[in-house]
């Protein structure tokens, strides 16, 4: 759906990150597959119930957020456990602009994007000096602190404190014959495809190669003239921007923001989605998003009281059985299929 179109990004293998073999251009079959997927994505809202449309929209929102995280972790090799904070920033920006200032929701997205880019860039600056474990720590602290910052009493007038903000659901514009669930689905799909295209192009551009060079060997990259600090901060900014846009969309779709929706658990979900989808593989974001949205329900089916424990066990199993996420599984399957032919 939103992030499923396009080629596999050909990321080289590197020491601390799961190896991704170079993509073999087999455009024919792949184009057909993703074309079909897009066709399904477009027809889906006309043949299914509103609740399922809503759930699929939420999946796409998560996919966009994971896509942003993937740009940072998978492509640039910087670690973040705190992307929930940028998601929250995007969500609150949209909510406050819509409800307090009465802005049209379409305008909140670019504003949230700009704000999150700046915030990400600024957080990326001190993060430049941090590597690996230290960056994980700093971003972990950011994630844990976020709900407290959102509850801060001096800003209660804007943020609504603990209660949060309720958002009115926008309907379809221009008299389109769609209900608001369907409209939000298409809006999210369109923005998701746009952002996917953006990230895909970044990865395959000079900038993307600089990002990957920094991930694989920062010293070699800087000796070849890559401005390491600028690129790392930029990667943080763009990544935060994409995750922030996902946050705004999420706020509009769910029609509610409150501090306790943006706890450490949110950042964890994004990270889990990234690892499940395959680090560095852009379409994996969608598979990861499906996992984080639906697997908790599956875990709840298995045992209501022990849902968290079931989720944990499932996670451990996935890491054992498919250490490289969906990326690795799909590659292995495609290879086997080719050998059969």
């Amino acid at each position, binding site marked *: 759906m939103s992030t499923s179109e396009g080629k596999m990004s050909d990321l080289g293998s590197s020491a601390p990150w799961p190896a991704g073999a170079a993509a073999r251009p087999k455009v024919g079959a792949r184009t057909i597959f993703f074309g079909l997927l897009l066709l399904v994505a477009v027809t889906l809202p006309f043949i299914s119930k509103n609740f399922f449309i809503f759930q699929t929209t939420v999946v796409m929102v998560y996919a966009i957020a994971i896509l942003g995280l993937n740009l940072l972790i998978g492509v640039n090799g910087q670690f973040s456990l705190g992307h929930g904070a940028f998601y929250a920033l995007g969500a609150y920006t949209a909510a406050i602009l819509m409800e307090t200032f009465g802005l049209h929701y379409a305008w909140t997205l670019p504003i949230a994007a700009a704000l999150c880019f700046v915030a990400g860039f600024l957080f990326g600056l001190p993060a430049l000096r941090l590597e690996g474990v230290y960056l994980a720590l700093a971003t*972990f*602290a950011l994630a844990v602190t976020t709900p*407290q910052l959102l509850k801060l009493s*001096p800003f209660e007038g804007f943020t609504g404190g603990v209660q949060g903000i309720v958002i009115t659901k926008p309907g379809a514009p221009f008299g389109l014959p769609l209900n608001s669930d369907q409209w939000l689905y298409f809006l999210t799909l369109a923005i998701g495809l746009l952002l996917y295209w953006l990230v895909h192009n970044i990865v395959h551009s000079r900038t993307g190669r600089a990002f990957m060079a920094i991930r694989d060997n920062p010293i070699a990259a800087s000796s070849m003239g890559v401005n390491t600090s600028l690129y790392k901060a930029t990667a943080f900014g763009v990544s935060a921007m994409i995750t922030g846009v996902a946050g705004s969309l999420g706020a509009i779709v769910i029609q509610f923001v409150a501090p306790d929706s943006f706890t450490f658990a949110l950042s964890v979900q994004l990270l889990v989605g990234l690892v499940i989808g395959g*680090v560095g593989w852009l379409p994996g974001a969608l598979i990861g998003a499906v996992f984080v949205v639906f697997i908790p329900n599956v875990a709840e089916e298995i045992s209501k009281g022990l849902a968290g*424990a079931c989720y944990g066990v499932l996670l*451990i199993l996935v890491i054992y059985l498919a250490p490289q996420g969906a990326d690795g599984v799909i590659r292995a399957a495609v290879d086997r299929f080719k050998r059969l032919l």
Partner: protein
Amino acid sequence: MDLFIHQVIAGFATGGIYACMALAVVMIYQAIHHLNFAQGEMAMFSTYLGWQLLAWGAPYWAVFPLVMAISFAGGLAIERIVVRPIENAPVLSHVVIFIALFAIFNSAAGFIWGFTIKPVPSPFGEGALYPGAPIGKHQAGMLVVTMIVLSLLWAFFRFTRVGLSMRAASVNPESARLVGVRVSLMNGLGWGMASAIGALAGLLIAPVVFLEPNMMLSILLYGFAGAVLGGLSSPLGAVLGGFIVGIVENLAGTYIPVIGGELKLSIALFLIVAVLLVKPAGLLGRRTVQRV
């Protein structure tokens, strides 16, 4: 001035807890070079075990060593069963495993013991240490126990053969293996000890913060802040860092208005970022220099 001294002493007392937590963090970091995000939940689970034993009528001073022993075995088991198979996996896989452990312990504790807050009795008694004293009996006891454990640990690492082997295994696994140190066993021991120390921290702080499945997340964050402040490569630094974090937290909470109750966790964030910016190796940590 009285208020100031009072707050410093109170901060010292909570700092003891953070010091324990920071120490546990550093020990696992030394053993496997990953930060264990499930550390706090493991400690919380141990604390529940202790509460259960107390509720069954076991005497406090028997519960203490027993829970630490169980936690030690549990930590060792987790290392053997869950962590060992992915020893050489990428960093992210480890982080996801820690998240999984986090979810498992949190949910299991909630399932077994419920989410209602449980008061835990203090072994040192209630009330002030002496009439008009700045700290309570429990806090004083907590401080003494922490100090004893820390000195025992220091002696263990400094004077015993096993302690030396553990240090060797963490500093240079290859060479340690060549001189006959069983590196993987040492890693397991590191997990076990960290888990036992975490259990101690949990049992000591439970009378202060009350027992509930989510009690440890913020304490773990302060523990991380302490570990970073002192330096992730130095157990002594972690302890010192923990105490400083406790004192800073208390002073900032008293003297800076908005921070008071609302922003206490943010202090940890600011401390971590500030330390990493000014002195990334921490107060007592070794600077790692990479050869190119």
